């Protein structure tokens, strides 16, 4: 059973539960091409540590295609990526083997602010910043 963080909490869950309708996307998949009807969970795979396509997929799912269900990052996920992943709209994270989930939780606070607009911060910093 993989280590899972959901809603910033470490949870135990069998990732192969058959109850929910789950869609899994690979980096080259087009989120516009899938039906989100009745989908409880979208998993976006990060097969390699440096593959950044999943960030765009997440952002599009959340901001353009209106997906509100669970969005889970799976594959090569370490704590170092959590801040960016959450910013792009992921709310569940399956950590790679060997990564301590309890220690990893602190990484959501790696940065206290961001310059850019994102799913987590829809208004860019420059519109919120004092002169």
């Amino acid at each position: 059973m993989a280590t899972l963080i959901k809603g910033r909490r470490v949870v135990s869950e069998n990732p192969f539960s058959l109850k929910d309708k789950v869609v899994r996307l690979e980096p080259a998949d087009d989120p516009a091409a899938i039906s989100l009807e009745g989908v409880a969970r979208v998993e976006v795979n990060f097969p390699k540590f440096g593959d950044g396509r999943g960030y765009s997929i997440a952002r599009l799912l959340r901001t353009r295609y209106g997906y509100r269900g669970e969005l889970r990052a799976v594959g090569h996920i370490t704590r170092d990526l959590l801040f960016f992943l959450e910013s792009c709209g992921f709310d569940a994270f399956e950590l790679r083997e060997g990564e301590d989930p309890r220690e990893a939780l602190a990484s959501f606070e790696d940065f206290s602010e961001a310059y850019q607009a994102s799913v987590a911060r829809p208004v860019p910093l420059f519109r919120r910043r004092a002169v």
Partner: protein
Amino acid sequence: MYLYDAIDQRLVDERVRQFRDQTRRFLADQLSEDEFRALRLRNGLYIQRYAPMLRIAIPYGLLSTRQLRKLADIARKYDRGYGHFSTRQNLQLNWPKLEQVPEILAELATVQMHAIQTSGNSFRNVTTDHFAGVAQDEFVDSFVWCEILRQWSTFHPEFSYLPRKFKIAVNGARADRAAVGVHDIGLHAIKQGNEIGFKVLVGGGLGRTPMVGHVIREFLPWQHLLTYLEAILRVYNRYGRRDNIHKARIKILVKERGPEKFREEVEAEWAHLKHGLDTLTEKEVARVEARFTRPQYQSLKNENLAGEPAFLAWAKRNVHPHKVPGYAAVTLSLKKTGVPPGDVTSDQMDAIADLADRYSFGELRVSHEQNLVLADVRQRDLAPLWREARALGLATPNIGLLTNIISCPGGDFCALANAKSIPVAQAIQERFDDLDYLHEIGELDLNISGCMNACGHHHVGHIGILGVDKNGEEWYQVEIGGNQAPASLGKVIGPSLARADIPDAIEKLIHCYLDRRDSEAERFVDVVHRIGIEPFKERVYGHAHQRAPRSQREPVLA
């Protein structure tokens, strides 16, 4: 200087903390080599041939004397007492210790500096004209736009793991001194009536597949800068190739799609983003502008320069016009014969900081030609400044001339290099050490890269030299006819040469040029463009063949 506010500072401090923890986890075997590699590169840390190399960001090349003194201190304390200014306007330390890097980053943060994204597959330092803010032909201060882009491109959540590195250049003046044509994105400011905007070029770059960028938008009003860039980056992040590191730059995507198709994709993506919350506001531009310190110029008149011939020779090459009467910009040459191009010792850094404090409002710039610029010098101070700079070995009057060589660190330091660059640069400088002859040859950019990654920008040198490996031996390919702006790429003149033969080959190219030029006003590169490379090729290989025929060389018919 742009002065950080509390948020800018906090983000840099948080980055230091994050990297300190990542280094700790790597040393405790909790991060793999591959994972740590991706993370350390985003903090400028390479593992090199002999030691790690740390590349410190100097955003758009602008530096305060307080920062320069800190760099001098760091080089003394953690390295061997010198640093190397790179063509991306950054500073590289060649001998730091891995476990001390978090400490170095913490020291940098105390003077509003960092090494964020100076390497790795993410946005790199945004570069610009080293005469920004003082050039007579400028219509926007590109520093302001560079800083807006620095913020937008720092820790971008969606675009931090791009297919490959990504370089943006901004030019705010009529003349292009930022080489916008050879960047992943080049932004050339334009004024249409009273409206400021940018011409947007995409897909230029050097490296092993050099290309000149394509204009995909003739005029982008400034308000739309960030949304438009987001559209470009999203198309690139999703569709740029990740299967082959050598085909992963955006230039390959633009080429494979064709510029027109690529433009359509960007426009389609932009249609979703245009007028969104990322649309820039006058308030934000004014806020960034107001955080820049500005020189308090005196009211002065332009002066006629007079003095000894050596001073006038220096002034001719190293002093540049300024938009404020009575002021001038001065280039301190880091290209003295016998010193690796771009290298500066800690003691020199301290001395340069003193000069900048006394003569140029406590600021300086790093040029992509690897020199330092004092941008705001009173003309009446030029002579005393020259005397002091000369005593420090920083007044070689060679800016724009053959010996102002751009060079990467090459095989003496870099793990990627196929061949050494610095000894080649020195051999050429030694051959052309007669100043009168140098001035007679006139403007000539000579650029050297130790491998096809092209950190020495050899493709856009009027003469470009590339180190290549042949069966474990170091050889050098010579190109001519490259130009930085308007961008053109050099053509290889023939089979590669041994290191010892390079100065002779350069001399023959120069002789050919001097024989064929119409007048002194016609530069080397102009002659190459007018008559083609053939006459130059014959001049070099005819002699080389007769002197030392080698099996690798094609036979040359006399």
